[in-house]
């Protein structure tokens, strides 16, 4: 029984492996969570990469060769390791793009590193991804530290002036879901707030699957929090806004860290009148000044044409931008070996305001893009509009939460 089974498996694998050779194309790996709880934004992220590749193929491909995407699906780190192995060995891709989820990225990039295959991170924000001294792991998007710093700095630079208040007089509540995303971002928030001597009155972790956030809200209410920094996914964002309204808690400002704050679904579920005025620090979204982010409008049009809906969040745009950067580098590299690609990547030098996300590109010694920062956005009239930095802004920031 066992023998037969194994033989069948082995034969299947061998078949898969042999098929990988025959084509005259360049394969690239796309490792995202396509199933499980992270599937929504994993898929949204993938669409950005997919559009970038299609665009490139329409324009003649990578140095004349057609690019073929090979998807890898992982919901946990062991699967990420497996899929990374499959992509690097069975599919023999020269590079892998990914990943949206930080824990998957941490596991998968380790495989790529040891295989000498460049791993291009386009969306995961955990800082250690590019702090492990790896040679072949590069990232275009900002990290959780950038998010946290932007959120805290926004209190000083945007919220306090808008309220005509001294930033140090504002009581700050930090709440976050307790997975990797929330715990990392909130950790940096606390450090930054301390550095800037701001007054943090509560730090409350909770489970994103929770069905009741009223204890959190009542704690914030009791502590008299003026500004709430929330790092959350979609479900808990919806819950927070709904229950905040139910409990009559009205802070002066709420700042989200992307995630659930950035999706249209959230706004619809919460009701646009309720989310009005909520601030959000995230990758650039679509209501960004095109002057500062050339190509953003074209991207939205292409997305609309291909998928029949408006982009669900900025993840696709960020992945699109990053994919283009790396595809350019691959085109410039003398061959598709890891070292050549890495060399080309390190040569990339794009000033701020010249990509579809408005970021520039310059990699440091860890291969982390240094010319990036998340933007500050605000929900206004059912749209997430960029309000900071000034050159990317399309609207002025308002104060207050909710319309009533």
């Amino acid at each position, binding site marked *: 029984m066992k023998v037969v089974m194994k033989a069948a498996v082995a034969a299947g694998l061998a078949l898969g492996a042999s098929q990988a050779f025959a084509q005259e194309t360049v394969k690239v790996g796309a490792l995202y969570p396509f199933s499980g709880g992270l599937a929504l934004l994993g898929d949204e992220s993938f669409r950005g990469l997919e559009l970038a590749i299609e665009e490139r193929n329409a324009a003649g491909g990578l140095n004349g060769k057609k690019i073929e995407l090979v998807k890898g699906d992982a919901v946990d780190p062991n699967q990420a390791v497996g899929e990374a192995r499959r992509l690097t060995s069975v599919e023999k891709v020269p590079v892998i793009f990914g990943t949206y989820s930080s824990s998957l990225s941490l596991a998968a990039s380790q495989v790529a590193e040891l295989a000498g295959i460049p791993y291009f991170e386009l969306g995961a924000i955990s800082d250690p991804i590019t702090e492990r001294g790896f040679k072949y792991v590069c990232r275009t998007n900002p990290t959780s530290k950038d998010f946290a710093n932007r959120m805290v700095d926004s209190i000083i630079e945007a919220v306090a002036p808008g309220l005509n208040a001294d930033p140090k007089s504002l009581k700050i509540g930090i709440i976050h879901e307790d997975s990797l995303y929330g715990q990392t971002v909130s950790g940096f928030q606390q450090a930054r707030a301390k550095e800037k001597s701001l007054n943090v009155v509560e730090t409350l972790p909770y489970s994103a699957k929770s069905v009741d956030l009223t*204890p959190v809200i009542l704690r914030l209410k009791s502590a008299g929090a003026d500004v709430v920094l929330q790092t959350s996914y979609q479900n808990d964002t919806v819950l927070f806004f709904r229950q905040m309204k139910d409990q009559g808690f009205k802070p002066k400002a709420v700042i989200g860290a992307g995630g659930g704050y950035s999706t249209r*679904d959230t706004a619809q579920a919460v009701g646009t009148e309720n989310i009005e005025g909520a601030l959000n620090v995230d990758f650039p979204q679509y209501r960004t000044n095109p002057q500062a982010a050339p190509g953003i409008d074209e991207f939205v049009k292409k997305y609309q044409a291909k998928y029949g809906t408006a982009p669900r969040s900025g993840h696709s745009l960020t992945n699109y931008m990053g994919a283009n950067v790396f595809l350019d580098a691959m085109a410039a590299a003398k061959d598709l070996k890891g070292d050549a690609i890495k060399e080309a990547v390190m040569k990339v030098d794009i000033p701020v305001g010249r990509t579809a996300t408005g970021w520039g590109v310059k990699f440091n010694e860890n291969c982390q893009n240094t010319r990036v920062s998340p933007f500050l956005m605000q929900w206004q009239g059912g749209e997430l509009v960029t309000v900071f930095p000034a050159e990317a802004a399309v609207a002025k920031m308002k104060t207050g939460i909710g319309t009533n």
Partner: protein
Amino acid sequence: MDVLVQLLINGIMLGSMYAIISVGLTLIFGIVRVVNFAHGEFLMVGMYAVYLLGAYWGLNPYVSAVPVIILLFALGSLVQRFIIQPLLGADEHIQIFATVGLSTALVNLALLVFGADLYSLTVPSARQAVSVGDYTMLTGQIFMLACAVILVAGLHFFMQTTALGRAIRATAQNRNAALLMGVRVDRIYVITFGLGAACVGLASALLMPLYPVTPTIGTYFVLTAFVVVVLGGMRSIYGAFVGAMIIGIVDSLSGYYIAPDLKEVVYFAIFILILIFKPTGLFGFGRGTE
């Protein structure tokens, strides 16, 4: 003090939600003796059904309750008839894994059909805040509490007075004796499982106005429901209700006074202690060590 009262109110509201979900599990786990890990997925299926009825035919969720309860009854009966019953003779552990497989299949089916997006229905009538003094609750929550009380009382009445209810109780107490008395045990199990699922159908109609549905929504509820059922003493419908209220209040209070991310630790700890020291449930109705 104000906060405490508000927390208690929230706890009771939460408890009534757990109660409706757990009463169904009491029937399935307590009577049919199946550890149904797909219970949460039944809720998910129900909520998608309510969503579809609302989104495409504009049905109010509370109206959708009727067809959804029937749908879930059918789903539950089919699961018992075609998945659980063939396994009755096998190792009891096998059933657990059949339901795990079912749960995996259903979650992924939802992902396949609906994607990972959130779907929610806007039902303003269920989201009106009702204020009593300084305390607030939602109309939907009050409705949920009322339904929980009616459901528990109704089921109790059904179990005590109808022939079918008595047959179910007899089966629960002693399967073989019931068999000897001419009760068609297999059919009783199919009906009971169906009823348990139907309760979840009601729960999904009541939850839909308050929570958005995703493929994984069920996973959160299933463990809580097991805690409630064991706390309540396995087969007691009243026990499940009281257990649900306790968990709801513990959930609410520990989230505030201890830490929001540790509230599950608190009620799982209570669960373990009850199992170890009072395995018959809080009220001595059940038999945890049998």
